[in-house]
């Protein structure tokens, strides 16, 4: 089992990853799984009905709104950062939280680097699979580097203009 960093009420914590990330060409194993959006649309219904915990992986060029009706049945949504420069997953995560009202786990997977920790947290991502070997301490430090923020965002942190109140 690989490890994850999760953001909980108590702060950042190491957690065991109970899910198996299933590639499209692989046979779906037993246990809790993460499927691509396409595969979920084809096969997810049966798994969920059978009581399996299922997560969906959203590629950066996929439309998260397509998941709207399935969200209550999902165990998690994994948003893919294919590379550092590709910032579409920030919008995906923001929409999941702010527009679709998703309260379950939103997990960052792919090229997940500590330099983007703050941005990810602010967009409502609460589970991280770092690709740069960052420890939970590294991650917490990177995400907490700024004492203030300027915008309203999915993390509900009070922006500067509210602090100034």
């Amino acid at each position, binding site marked *: 089992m690989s490890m994850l960093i999760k953001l909980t009420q108590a702060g950042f914590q190491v957690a065991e990853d109970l899910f198996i990330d299933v590639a499209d060409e692989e046979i779906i194993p037993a246990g809790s799984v993460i499927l691509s959006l396409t595969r979920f649309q084809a096969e997810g219904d049966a798994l969920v009905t059978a009581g399996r915990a299922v997560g969906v992986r959203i590629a950066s060029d996929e439309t998260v709104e397509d998941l709207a009706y399935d969200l209550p049945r999902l165990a998690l949504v994994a948003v893919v950062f294919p590379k*550092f*420069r*590709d*910032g*579409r997953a*920030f*919008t995906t995560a*923001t929409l999941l939280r702010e*527009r679709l009202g998703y309260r379950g786990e939103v997990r960052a997977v792919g090229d997940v680097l500590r*330099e*983007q920790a*703050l*941005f990810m947290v*602010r*967009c409502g991502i609460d589970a991280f699979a770092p690709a740069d070997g960052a420890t939970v301490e590294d991650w917490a430090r990177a995400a907490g*580097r*700024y*004492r*203030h*923020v*300027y*915008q*309203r*965002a*999915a*993390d509900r942190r009070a922006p*500067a*203009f509210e*602090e*100034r*109140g």
Partner: protein
Amino acid sequence: MYLYDAIDKDFLADRAAEFRGQVARRLAGELTEDQFKPLRLMNGLYLQLHAYMLRVAVPYGSLNPTQLRAFAHIARTWDKGYGHFTTRQNIQFNWVKLGDAPDILDHLAGVDMHAIQTSGNCIRNVTSDPYAGATAQEVDDPRVWSEVIRQWSTLHPEFSFLPRKFKIAVTAAETDRTAARAHDIGLKVQRGPDGDLGFEVMVGGGQGRTPYLAPTIRAHLPASRLISYLEAILRVYNRHGRRDNIYKARIKILVASLGAEEFARQVEEEWLKIAEGADLPDTELARIRGSFAPLDFAILPPRSDVFEAAKASDKAFARFVRNNIKAHKQPGYGIVEISLKAPGATPGDASAEQMEAVADLAERFGLSDIRATHEQNLVLPHVKLDDAPAVHAALAAVGLATPNINLISDIIACPGLDYCALANARAIPVAQSIAERFADPDRAETIGELKVKISGCINACGHHHVGHIGILGVDKKGEEFYQLSLGGSGAEDASLASILGPALPADKVADAVDRMVEAYLAIRQDGERFLDTFRRAGMTPFKEAVYVDAH
């Protein structure tokens, strides 16, 4: 001007500390250059041909004397004694050592300045009118909205990794001194049909290898909805802008491929889904607006005897007045433009001594306000006409009284092959050769307004697409050649320049410009600028003048 409070100051201190840690990791070998590159770029640190270059933001081109003195200090302590003001109202230091960069950022943070978002695919420093708060033309102070955008865009959680860099301009005057339509978003502050404050929203302009002027996608946006509307535009772009080819990644390509109408429809559709809570509360807007409250101007008669006497007796001052002093909204005041285009100088360069001299003048005579223009000059926006002769004399003493604003020698040039790793050709020596050719100030004044803009490669940092005469450096089998184009404008009458003909070698460029100028003088009609004559007469007379020997 806007004063940083404890929150803004904490923010810059945190940023500087973060970067210091990253540089330490790089110097200790914990980060490779590949890993470090995106981090240094997020702090404006580029690796150029000969050294690191640090680009420091001058938010919407506005700075105070303490800040300008800090630039002078940086130039003297960590660079070769000068800095370079850019076409984005920023300043660049061209000879920085990596190990010094954290100290420089600390020094900047100490005077409320930084290098945040001066590079990378994020929302860059906002361009605004250097005459803001001084010109009678404006319907509102564009700095208020520029500051609103500065805060909103700083480390924006969703829009810091866009397909490509993103530039916003805010203007509030009839005369556009920001090149609004050449930006990703141009905002023109205006009064709506009912007298309400709002914006004309233009999206999808840009230069580079495929230049576009931004079409208007919304005729009038209520001012209070600015942030939510920007969010809608940026979200559509972040999702649908191309990421497969960096030359097609700017928003202009998305707007052009969808068509302005369809793009506007998608933005409106997205905007309707964004709650009104996304907009800035009125209280914060009022707080920011308070920073730009009208200054403590003296009540003066519109006519200054000192000023008139100096004009009558001192020819050099009279010429400076004609070209460099512009109308101020307050009677008895003028807007003083300081040209960084002395003959033989590098356009936009200012030495530490010159920066200090300007800082002193701003303090003594200019209500402590200084602006940088996108045409690479400086401005003292509020000078009493009574004080103008003294200001002129002090500028002349440090080589800053060149009376050529908007004239043919007031040339925009990018750093080109003298510094820039992307360049095909040099830009600075070409600018110098043209400026020298037209060094005779009488001739330059006879020619009148003529904007020459030079880029060292197709990235167009020298804005050649919107030059009355645009000059682009190209590489022809390892040799530097220059492609001339005519008829561009970045002002309220925006247009893109068209190519004149085959590219010319470096030593023929000043000649060609000279010939085109003679052709213009021969056929111009009353009051026509070079640009107007070109628009009336077309390309032919200029083409003939330049390529006559080729027949």
